[in-house]
């Protein structure tokens, strides 16, 4: 028995299949499950994706937002059960995989340029979409 294949099959059982395609620079809204006492509710966290890292069940992504003038970053386990859903609000146009340089920027400089959907780009992801 191939060891890595066994590990992969166990991880596949726990991984989400309905995640949207998102990457660094994108603005996303994450619905997080919050348990208060015996009640569970959803809390939204909206911001820019700074990075995605890891593979399999241990993959994570970092989201940064400015809350009341203070920069707040949260690292979410991509396949964790507390991450109820991820919605892409805006696609960003960035030239690197890790956007840590945003931490030092404020105001207009910290904005990530948006990727406009043209007929060409809109058609391309649809063709790539997995069944």
């Amino acid at each position: 028995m191939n060891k890595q294949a066994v590990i992969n099959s166990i991880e596949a059982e726990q991984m989400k299949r309905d995640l949207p395609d998102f990457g660094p620079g994108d603005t996303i809204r994450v619905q997080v499950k919050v348990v208060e006492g015996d009640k569970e509710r959803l809390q939204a966290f909206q911001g820019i994706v700074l990075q995605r890292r890891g593979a399999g069940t241990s993959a994570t992504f970092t989201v940064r937002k400015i809350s009341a003038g203070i920069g707040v970053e949260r690292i979410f386990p991509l396949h964790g059960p507390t991450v109820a859903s991820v919605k892409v609000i805006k696609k960003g146009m960035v030239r690197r995989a890790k956007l840590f340089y945003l931490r030092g920027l404020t105001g207009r400089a910290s904005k990530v340029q948006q990727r406009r959907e043209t007929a060409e780009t809109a058609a391309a992801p649809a063709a790539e979409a997995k069944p």
Partner: protein
Amino acid sequence: MNGLICRKIGMTTYFGDGNRAFPVTVLEAGPCVVTQVKSSGSDGYAAVQLGFGAKKERACTKAMKGHFAKAAAAPQSVVREFRVADPSGFQPGQVIKTDIFAAGDTVKATGTMKGRGTAGVVKRHDFRGGPGSHGQTDRLRHPGTNGAGTTPGRVYKGRRMAGRMGASTVTVRNLTVVKVDPDKNLLLIRGAVPGANDGIVIIRKA
């Protein structure tokens, strides 16, 4: 049955236990075949001998071939004995699978830990080493003193020093079974078990 012979496959992240992520070890657990049943009447103690893993017939000695033939079992690469209170329920040739465990069971894992070669006292005996500052040099990981002076004039036996570490049998207790898969012969255990991947680990009920 109270234990199984397993092969360590590797570790991964698992979600559960109130939405938490925790580490699990994946084990290929059995199927194990009963190769001999020992009773207090004939052997002086009660035990069940299990075999695990395929072995080429030509790699077996004649004695082992005869031993497996007696139990009507294929040649096994690992053979281990498990003490049981009552061996009367077991038959040679009987197959034991992971379904003897259930999720939530507390188990202990016995394996051969990875060899560390010659190791210093900080790694080997959890010494603290020396101070990093206040005028100290070259004694970050030193053992300090190894005894008094003229009285007793010698180092007591059993003084913990640097030396060969690891490649010894280690048992880890109080491990929890996370998941049991009898179809794929897999066992998921929370935390780490001794030894490298592909190593043989004995899992027993605690």
